[in-house]
């Protein structure tokens, strides 16, 4: 089982390459225009899979704070006495964040990043109180944002591609690339 699991782990990076190659092959080699666009869809989704894989962390949860973590989620000006508590927590969070900053900067400076990794994790665990937000508990939100954009770009490109396909069908009566080229050649 362990072996299987280790395969499954690196499998993710492999699968994205396999899917991408399937898509790329279809983009280059398929003759049917709609098939090419389907290949394009697969190709783009594979890249998105790669990005999402970057952001995944073992044991991490979705990048949304729960109610008890997000004391400031609902800002309510009416609660006077709650404000003080808020400030305390805010303070703690800031402290924690500063430390993470410091650690991260050390990291960027250090040449031997892998050697300190373990220490870093332990350090940040020790340093923070339980109410603080640990970066390693949440999946990386940045790649998710980037990939939302990529998905939208993908559907926009697909739409334009389909529109051109329909226009070509209206003009040539075919959606096979070789037939269209043949028509252009003989038509001249």
């Amino acid at each position, binding site marked *: 089982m362990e072996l299987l699991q280790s395969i499954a782990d690196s499998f993710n990076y492999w699968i994205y390459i396999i899917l991408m190659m399937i898509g790329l092959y279809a983009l280059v080699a398929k003759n049917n225009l709609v098939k090419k666009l389907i290949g*394009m869809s697969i190709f783009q989704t594979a890249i998105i899979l*790669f990005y999402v894989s970057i952001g995944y962390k073992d044991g991490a949860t979705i990048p949304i704070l729960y109610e008890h973590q997000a004391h400031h989620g609902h800002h309510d000006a009416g609660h006077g006495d709650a404000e003080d508590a808020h400030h305390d927590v805010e303070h703690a969070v800031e402290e924690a964040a500063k430390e993470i900053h410091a650690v991260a900067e050390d990291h*960027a400076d250090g040449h031997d990043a892998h050697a300190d990794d373990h220490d870093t994790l332990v350090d940040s665990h020790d340093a923070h109180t339980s109410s603080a937000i640990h970066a390693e508990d949440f999946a990386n939100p940045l790649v998710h944002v980037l990939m939302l954009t990529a998905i939208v*770009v993908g559907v926009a*490109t697909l739409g334009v*591609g389909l529109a*051109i396909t329909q226009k070509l069908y209206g003009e040539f009566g075919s959606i096979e690339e070789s037939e269209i080229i043949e028509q252009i050649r003989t038509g001249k």
Partner: protein
Amino acid sequence: MTEQAPIFILLFPFLTAVIVALVGLRHKSLSWPLTLVSLGASVCASLSTLAQVVEHGPIRYKLGGWSPPFGIEFHIDGLSALVAVTVSVVALLTAIYSKDNVDAETPDKSSQYYSLFLLLVSGLLGIVITGDAFNLYVMLEVAALTSYALIAMGNKRASLAAFKYLIMGTIGASFYLLGVGYLYIKTGSLNMLDIREILETAGLFNSPTILVAFILITVGVWIKMAFFPLHSWLPNCYAFAPTTSSNIMAPLVTKVMIYVMVRMVLTVFGPNYAFEILDWENIVVWLAVIAILAGSIGALAQKDLRKMLTFLIIAEVGYMVGGLWLADETGITGTIFHIISDAFMTLCVFLFAGIVFAKTGARDIYALEGMFKKMPLTMVGFLVGAFSLIGIPPTAGFFSKWYLVQGGINSGNWEYVVALLISSLINAVLFFRLIEIAYFGKKPAEGHDHHHGDDHAKVSEASFTMLLPLLSTAAILIVIGLYNKELVSVIQDFLSQFNLATSIR
């Protein structure tokens, strides 16, 4: 207000695109003036930005008020400011020119056409001024989607060309995106300057991931700029697209992609990595030599005027890719200079081709017969553009080529110098053939006689909106040529930060 100038470069065309899409449905006649006004404002903003950059050095404009690695920033140095000015000026000139063409070629859809035109310009400007690697991808897609549509609005053959372009363009953009992902997995940053800093401090230059990222980004951009073995989409696209579409895209799209390549090589990876650690100069320069020769020879074989010019674009792309990989300061100066001068000279000859097409309805080069008598002013504009492409002083083309040749000699890449001279010679042959046809009205061999007669009797000087941009472009070419020292000093200010080899490697 001047510190907000960078955002106005982009904001005017972009917001006007939306307004045109909205207002143009009801009042078609408003589309063109609105386009002109917004592009004029954009030109002013980019000129003001250039003035600031020259005076105070690079500008970093924080969008949303977030400091750079967390938010997106505009990073505008001498290179981006120069290219931004070029893009906005070319766009303005093309927009002036477009009035008659758009009404004639896409009568029902002029509002959509202008909207897409402005979106293309804002996409290109966005690519030029952004300082964020992922944002560049988004702007790349804005520019790409509009180009597909602008090409597909042409005739029957344009649709197929547009589809091919869509496929190639998507592969190119996806490679770029993947390359950025590879950079991100190693550096954890998306800001260009930040990536560079992390690459240097963390000593990542030996990592295979960074190597693959470099290859993916370079190949992706090469596909988009139609570098020789990857050029197959370009000729049909630009030859069969509506006139205005090819007028805006031929000068700008490939040049902006070359800008992206220069930006990636110099700013993100650094010349140290691209030229010294990888040491691929010879391979890439040889590829460029092949591209130059293939483009020039391809152009010789064409009888269709616009198609001939598209092959010249492929040769010019070869000049610039080769010029960058000469890894010599003079050569890179020449590359950046050539981005600017080539944008204007390509615009000049494409505007001319558009006028010929609009006046005679013919595509092939024999349509030029007797043009000197019928449209003398147009021919003057064309002559300047042709001389610039050949490289005759005092036009801009001469000076940029001079720097490229100088760079080739300095770095000892004689094959590049020879290819450049051969290509200039071929350009001379091509254009003097055209001039001969136009001046002496040389009768072509049989088979072409359907072009003279009735068609030509009606041909007269082009209308004012067509002539003005052509002559202004010609004037700009000469002005750039005369003020080449000032331009080069701006470029060299920009290049001085990279410690490039100046004479002998």
